[in-house]
């Protein structure tokens, strides 16, 4: 009995050293993350097109505290805006631009388009802060999604949208002003850059997508 216990302990120790040496061969002190291997498993991720933003694996939190992947926005065209709720300069104008776009659609078209706003401010924009923002701006629950996420994931989404941003020391963010239209598959089909711009091209793009 004692012998088997001893040999078991020996075997475990041997295994552990083998693992350790494997890890050091890779030049790291910590075990290699299995994140990427998990992504390889077929079936776990719906097949998105090569140009779809919905391929990203990041998980986001809505203003009601629900966790979601961007892929769950698939199925209808989305108007995407990156913003932050404490913004006092550009974002209110961009918010107004989104409302103008929504208002330019017929009620029927409007139900077939989603508006998704993602915050740069990972510290302040908690689900609660975003819920308050929704109230302040009177954003319909239906079709309007407000998301917060991890800093790394915000950076990745910004990179995918071609949005530049930078935190300033006073808690504000400098950022590009871009309203992006994704088709139902999550591919970028149009981007409107600037503040208080002519929205007609964006609206026309959405109407065409909804008709198809």
């Amino acid at each position, binding site marked *: 009995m004692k012998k088997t216990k001893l040999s078991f302990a020996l075997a475990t120790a041997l295994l552990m050293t083998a693992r350790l040496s494997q890890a*050091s061969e*890779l*030049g*790291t*002190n*910590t*075990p*290699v*993350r299995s*994140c*990427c*291997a998990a*992504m*390889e498993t077929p079936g776990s991720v719906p097949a998105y097109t*090569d*140009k*779809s*933003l919905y*391929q990203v694996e990041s998980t986001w939190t809505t203003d009601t505290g629900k966790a979601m992947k961007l892929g769950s926005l698939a199925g209808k065209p989305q108007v995407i805006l990156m913003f932050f709720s404490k913004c006092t*300069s*550009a974002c209110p104008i961009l918010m107004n631009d989104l409302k103008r776009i929504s208002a330019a659609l017929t009620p029927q078209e409007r139900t077939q388009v989603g508006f998704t706003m993602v915050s740069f401010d990972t510290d302040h924009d908690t689900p609660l802060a975003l819920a308050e923002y929704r109230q302040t701006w009177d954003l319909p629950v239906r079709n309007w999604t407000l998301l917060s996420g991890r800093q*790394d994931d915000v*950076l*990745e989404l*910004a*990179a*995918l949208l*071609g*949005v*530049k*941003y*930078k935190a*300033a*020391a*006073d808690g*504000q963010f*400098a*950022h*590009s*002003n871009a309203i992006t239209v994704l088709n139902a598959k999550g591919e970028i089909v149009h981007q409107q*850059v*600037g*503040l208080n711009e002519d929205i007609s091209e964006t609206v026309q793009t959405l109407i065409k997508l909804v008709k198809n």
Partner: protein
Amino acid sequence: MQEKPNLHCRAARLRSCWWIAGCLMLALAAKAGPANMVLIPNGLYHPLFLSANDLKEVPVKSFYLDAFPVTVKDFLEFLRANPRWQRSRVKRIFADESYLNNWAGDLDPGTNAPASSPVTYVSWFAAKAYAEWKGKRLPTVAEWEYAASASATRPDGESDPRFKAEILQWYSTPTPLVLPAVGADTANFFGAHNLHGLVWEWVADFNSALIAGDPGSNGVSERRFFCGAGSQGAREVDDYPAFMRYAFRSSLKADYCVHNLGFRCARDL
């Protein structure tokens, strides 16, 4: 009689010396950190462009930085373990058509990409995925610039005109078709190699380079739109290498794959 306590004392002192030496060695061993990474101590990064509400100095917390850029050999290992990043399988949104352009095949670097040369033609997404696979991350602009501001002899090399001149000379030299091996240069003050003189490198927040005249950036004023006025808000108008890196970074998109753009990883302590 008087000698004896003295001897005792000496022995005790000797013993404590050993203790101290032992502790020091342990501390040094801990400081050596992960393989092929160097410790960058706490410091300050001086951003090139400042808007009215920016800090003049950004504190950089001590971190580990790869001593060398990631090589072709390193990247090949990553591709073996993560087939979805191989050239024929990568999704177009994560890397443009030039991805691993100088490789002969999916798992065959070929003669244009020698094993010990820095891997290039990699997108920001690919670099990020590699870093995550290694349990690391990409350094930030502040971290990279701070680490790269050291010359071979001093941590504040940026104030040494000769150091700046050497970097500029590299910027004006065309990149060779086949990149030389990493580590052929003298290490900088922190022990890092090739931060200058071999390839440009991706950083995590490459997309934070907003020119002062960008719409929406805080503190925009009309004068910044004038030709050449971009330099008005700059910290040091004669730091040409910093301007060049800033310009290069702001021209990048995350899916770009370029011949002279590679990367290295960082890690928190």
